């Protein structure tokens, strides 16, 4: 696998990762995102409906939390999780946790870490962890690590130090086991940068992890709410400065458009795409504009639309939604609102997704009000396509040196 940078602009890296996958002939663009899945399937989507989406990323994110309990089945299956889930051609990255569900703290020891699945906690020593990866056979996998330091608010230096020590120990042990297994050598280990909010520990984690033969780096523990990210951005710059240029940098738990841009400016390459899923679960559709150089007439129309939407968001408070107890952002509209009952426009004018080409806001509103399953399907299709389009526009903006315009546009829409 080879990462080639086309250019670096204001800390943002534009490039390609080539020779990916078992056949060594896949390519990924950076900055980019991974397709978010639950138990090996895009949420709400079957093979057919997933295929309808334009711009689906080349790499799929699987979560060990949803797959660890199927270890035995996958071992007997023998052919790897990609084929098992019906995505034999996709690149696969296996993360430890599901970014949407927070992990309960207090379960990492010097010998093991745990993930939480449907049937409960699955504890994994390094050997068990690697045995599971051997059954999964992903292209990339996050190394077993201790990320719990960020589950709590206050980080003690002691706890931060432990997270780095443990993660390095796990990494060395995993690398050892990888050397002893032909199957595992076909997968790439992603080293995990820990250290909480303690600069010293973060730097130590970055430097030490970079010494190991990992294929890339996962920046863990930067997730939280928007305010915590602000304070952590400084840490992020310092961390990425310690990492080699020719290996990809992934970040966990960051998926909002404004936060994505902040992280790209600080040297991050790859993101998870769970934000469109969260939007879907609260019955909302992404509508934020990422067209940083539209024709003047469009700008006027979009601006009017955006202002309308921003006004409405001010009136909307936190809503309770199962699993995604988050506030509606200003990047989206809430289709449950009565004003969409007779709105026969598509979700986003000009959007080429299946939902916008075939259905109206009024129809989605009806589906939500009547609790129909199709609401989730159509919203997921739109939200993923919109989000992947955003990443495409980031790359285009970097290519033509227009990132400042895009950033300004996104910031205008962030409440």
């Amino acid at each position, binding site marked *: 696998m080879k990462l080639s940078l086309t250019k670096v602009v204001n800390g943002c890296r534009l490039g390609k990762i080539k020779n990916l996958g078992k056949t060594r002939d896949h390519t990924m663009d950076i900055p980019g995102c991974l397709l978010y899945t639950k138990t090996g399937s895009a949420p709400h*989507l*079957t093979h*057919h409906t997933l295929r309808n989406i334009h711009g689906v990323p080349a790499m799929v994110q699987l979560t060990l939390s949803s797959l660890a309990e199927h270890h035995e089945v996958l071992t007997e299956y023998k052919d790897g999780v990609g084929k098992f889930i019906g995505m034999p051609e996709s690149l696969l990255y296996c993360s430890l946790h599901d970014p949407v569900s927070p992990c309960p703290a207090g379960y990492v020891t010097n010998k093991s870490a745990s993930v939480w699945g449907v049937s409960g906690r699955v504890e994994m020593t390094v050997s068990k962890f690697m045995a599971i990866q051997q059954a999964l056979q992903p292209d990339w996998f996050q190394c077993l690590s201790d990320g719990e330091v960020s589950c709590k608010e206050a980080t003690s230096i002691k706890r931060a130090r432990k997270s780095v020590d443990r993660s390095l120990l796990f990494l060395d042990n995993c690398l050892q086991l990888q050397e002893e297994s032909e199957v595992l050598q076909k997968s790439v280990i992603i080293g995990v940068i820990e250290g909480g909010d303690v600069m010293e520990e973060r730097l130590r984690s970055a430097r030490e992890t970079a010494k190991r033969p990992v294929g890339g780096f996962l920046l863990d523990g930067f997730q939280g709410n928007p305010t915590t990210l602000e304070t952590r951005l400084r840490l992020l710059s310092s961390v990425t400065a310690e990492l080699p240029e020719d290996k990809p940098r992934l970040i966990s738990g960051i998926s909002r458009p404004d936060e994505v841009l902040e992280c790209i400016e600080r040297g991050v390459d790859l993101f998870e795409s769970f934000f469109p899923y969260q939007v879907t679960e609260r019955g909302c559709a992404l509508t934020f504009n990422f067209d940083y150089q539209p024709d003047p007439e469009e700008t006027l129309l979009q601006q009017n639309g955006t202002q309308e939407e921003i006004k409405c968001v001010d009136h909307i408070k936190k809503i309770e939604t199962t699993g995604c107890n988050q506030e509606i952002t200003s990047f989206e509209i809430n289709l449950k609102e009565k004003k969409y009952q007779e709105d026969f426009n598509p979700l986003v004018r000009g959007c080429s997704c299946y939902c916008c080409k075939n259905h109206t806001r*009024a129809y989605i509103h009806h589906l939500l009000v009547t609790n129909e399953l*199709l609401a989730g399907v159509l919203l997921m299709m739109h939200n993923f396509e919109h989000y992947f389009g955003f990443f495409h526009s980031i790359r285009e903006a970097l290519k033509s040196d227009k990132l400042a315009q895009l950033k300004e546009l996104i910031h205008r829409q962030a409440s």
Partner: protein
Amino acid sequence: MAGAATQVSLESAPRIMRLVAECSRSRARAGELRLPHGTVATPVFMPVGTQATMKGITTEQLDALGCRICLGNTYHLGLRPGPELIQKANGLHGFMNWPHNLLTDSGGFQMVSLVSLSEVTEEGVRFRSPYDGNETLLSPEKSVQIQNALEMTKRDVPGFAIGGLSGGESKAQFWRMVALSTSRLPKDKPRYLMGVGYATDLVVCVALGCDMFDCVFPTRTARFGSALVPTGNLQLRKKVFEKDFGPIDPECTCPTCQNHSRAFLHALLHSDNTAALHHLTVHNIAYQLQLMSAVRTSIVEKRFPDFVRDFMGTMYGDPTLCPTWATDALASVGITLG
């Protein structure tokens, strides 16, 4: 015997059905319905999309399965979102973006419900006519006492719906009522048997002369994790499928069976990803449509009775193990099993 009813002119009703083939033994027919949104081959199974949606699958997916007619319930839609909105959305077709045919319980396709089931007694079934409220006792022996039904058969309608028979009545009564109805209905008009959807019932009722069927069963059972197969159904949530790496049905051409194994679907059903339900909905609709297609082909190729025997053999292990009511029903139209 009732006096001969006056012949009412049947010319003015549109001839929507064209008979393509008839079974020489039973009452099974293969035909074509010429409808405003395209031709529909019969016998046909119509999936039910109650609230302007086919339960988690897109209209494109439904079209790709070969579905050309499905059901919409105007009763529900009359409440939500309401008739004015549907009108503004260019009708139900426009609202849900379905390019093919829709059968609704009012408007559009003028169907008349034959009777509504009132009471099952030892003597027979007591029906209440929706037109004049008169009660009639309809028993197999007293075929002469179906004046109301006779009257309706003479009405100037494009087809007939046989309703009120998917409730709690016994199967023995059920098939007799269907047989009686089809014996009285004109041949050149479609017979739509409401609420019938189990595979065995479909095959038997085709033999008895029905052309169109609808039922929530296949789509509903999908959402409970049950996949329909020629031998019955697979409760995919059960542990026995945990390591079953074959497709639901190796003969099935649906996307679910082309891309996924029972083991994967088992795992997905135990997660909170709704995709599991959609995979099964797609398959179950495909199963019903493929079944009807196979039935039709066998009628056209003049081997329907053999098809029935094979079907029952696969479903029950042996044609002779078929449930009694079905054996009796088939025998009544000249098809013997084993």
